[in-house]
């Protein structure tokens, strides 16, 4: 981990900051909310009764032979909010939302949706998803039902909404644990870790962290050299719950992670 000190002097000398640092909100640990530890069915697609066949799986999990029971299918729907052309430096993307929880992300050509579909083409007003033996075209503003196949270890931290996540410990242990680059930064009188690029599919990407996020340590621990390894341990050691404070874009998010199973 590449740790550097950023702007300590001018931050510490700021009167506004000094005022802010006296606040109780600036000290102490984020407190886990008293929230249910089960996944809210309202945000989960309906499981599909039909077992997953080998022919449905385009992307086998690395080094795995196909074992039917390792894969699960759900009946869900994807809605295309729109196509983003970008500035010419960033590739065109399709903004897809998954019902019923409506989690939304930008997909680029080649990105996978689960194990059985990938984005094959992004047009000006539509996206084409390619399955093992079929294509699905979703037009802008339209919603399409899909059978989504995932490996049982694909989802590390399932978002429950309002910054709560259900952690699948087994999936977390199976995810690459590559530590992102990080540097120390001072904000509001606290030392935080500013994250660099995060490897796609890594434990930290799966925990919904992004480049530029500012982190405290787990459960309010100092953001020192052990903060990111500590987060890795918290995700994988099966503890019932832990809290993580993330600053993103100027807003602070108190996240609560609970063990899913």
């Amino acid at each position, binding site marked *: 981990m590449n740790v550097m000190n*950023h*702007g300590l002097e*001018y*931050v510490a000398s*700021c009167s*506004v*900051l000094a*005022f*802010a640092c006296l*606040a*109780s*909100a*600036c000290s102490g640990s984020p407190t886990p909310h008293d929230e249910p530890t089960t996944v809210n069915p*309202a*945000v989960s697609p309906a499981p599909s009764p039909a077992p997953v066949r080998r022919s449905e799986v385009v992307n086998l999990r690395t080094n795995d032979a196909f074992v039917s029971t390792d894969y699960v299918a759900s009946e869900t729907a994807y*809605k*295309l*909010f*729109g*196509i*983003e*052309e*970008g*500035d*010419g*430096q*960033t590739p065109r993307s399709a*903004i897809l*939302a998954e019902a*019923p*929880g*409506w*989690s*939304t*992300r*930008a997909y680029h050509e080649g990105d996978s949706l689960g194990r059985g579909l990938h984005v094959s083409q992004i047009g000006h*007003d539509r996206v084409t998803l390619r399955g093992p033996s079929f294509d699905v075209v979703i037009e*802008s*503003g339209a919603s399409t039902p899909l059978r989504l196949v995932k490996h049982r270890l694909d989802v590390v931290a399932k*978002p429950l*909404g*309002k*910054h709560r996540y259900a952690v699948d410990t087994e999936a977390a242990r199976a995810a690459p644990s590559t530590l992102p680059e990080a540097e120390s*930064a*001072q*904000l*509001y009188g606290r030392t935080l870790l*500013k994250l660099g690029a995060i490897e796609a599919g890594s434990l930290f990407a799966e925990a*919904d962290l992004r480049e*530029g996020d*500012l982190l405290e340590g787990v459960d309010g621990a100092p953001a020192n050299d052990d903060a990111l390894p500590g987060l890795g341990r918290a995700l994988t050691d099966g503890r019932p719950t832990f809290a993580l404070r993330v*600053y*993103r*874009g*100027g*807003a*602070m*998010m*108190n996240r609560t992670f609970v063990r899913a199973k």
Partner: protein
Amino acid sequence: MRLMHCAIPAIATGVVLFVSQATADVWAPPAKQANAGDSISQGFSANGWPGDHTELSWVQGSDVGVDSVASRTRASYADFTQDSESVSGAELIGGNDNFAAQASRICAQRPLPTRVHVLLGANDVCNRPRSSSKDAAANLYSVTTWTNALRTGLDQLAACLPPRSVVQLLSVPRVDGIYEAGNAKSGWCSWGVWPIANVCRVVTAETSASRRAQIGARIDQYNDALAAEADSYARNLNGQNSRGIAFVSDWVGSTSSGHENTSLGTFRFGADDINGSDCFHPNVAGQARIACVAWAKSPDGAGPYAGCFKR
């Protein structure tokens, strides 16, 4: 169902009695309020302490200095309750807590609310990467994407809320204007907190005023779409609102078309309206202004709004 069209000209000319009486006759009682929103609705840093301070929120707060929509409603409806779904960091379009997600959570509430206030969109702008092309807004979501995401939330509310409920869509504040307010507030903002905390870098790292204005112009387009959708649902032009739910917006047009300080989206924030710690979120005075205009532009409080923006 034509209230929205009647209300704006009526308010502008100071004739508000008709609107208030019509409201009492037409809309479901404000027994319960829900809201969809982001850190602004969470009262984030409103008192200068980093973090959510919901008691200082324009919509759900209890602080007398803010005089929130909830406080104003409770004053006339004693059994009023509220259940907020807003969450800091939320976008209207992206992520796990977007408008469609928050709308689905509102629809899962029991009892269902009869008043829903929506204020989202600033993060949709602030979270986008800066553009390297001539068009500073090139990496912002398109208006099509914006509108489809908005409809996904509104469709759910139209389908689940009790008949004659009221949904209010507040326009998105111009973040290029908030940048100006932060710059006026303190040098600490531009060289201290904004780069370290990554505060809305799409405008705070942009040195060209004309490029920042391009960002603001896209927000105007979002707000035009917001008002058009409110109108479409209110009059059931899209066939989604068969149960007579009111959809109202505060937006009447952009500053460039002569409507400065007529809505949240055209309010010119000043240094006195934003907090001194992140120099971007509204402080107590700013929250009070938002509460004032939201109330004045709602059927429950319909009244003059010019005073909300007076300095």
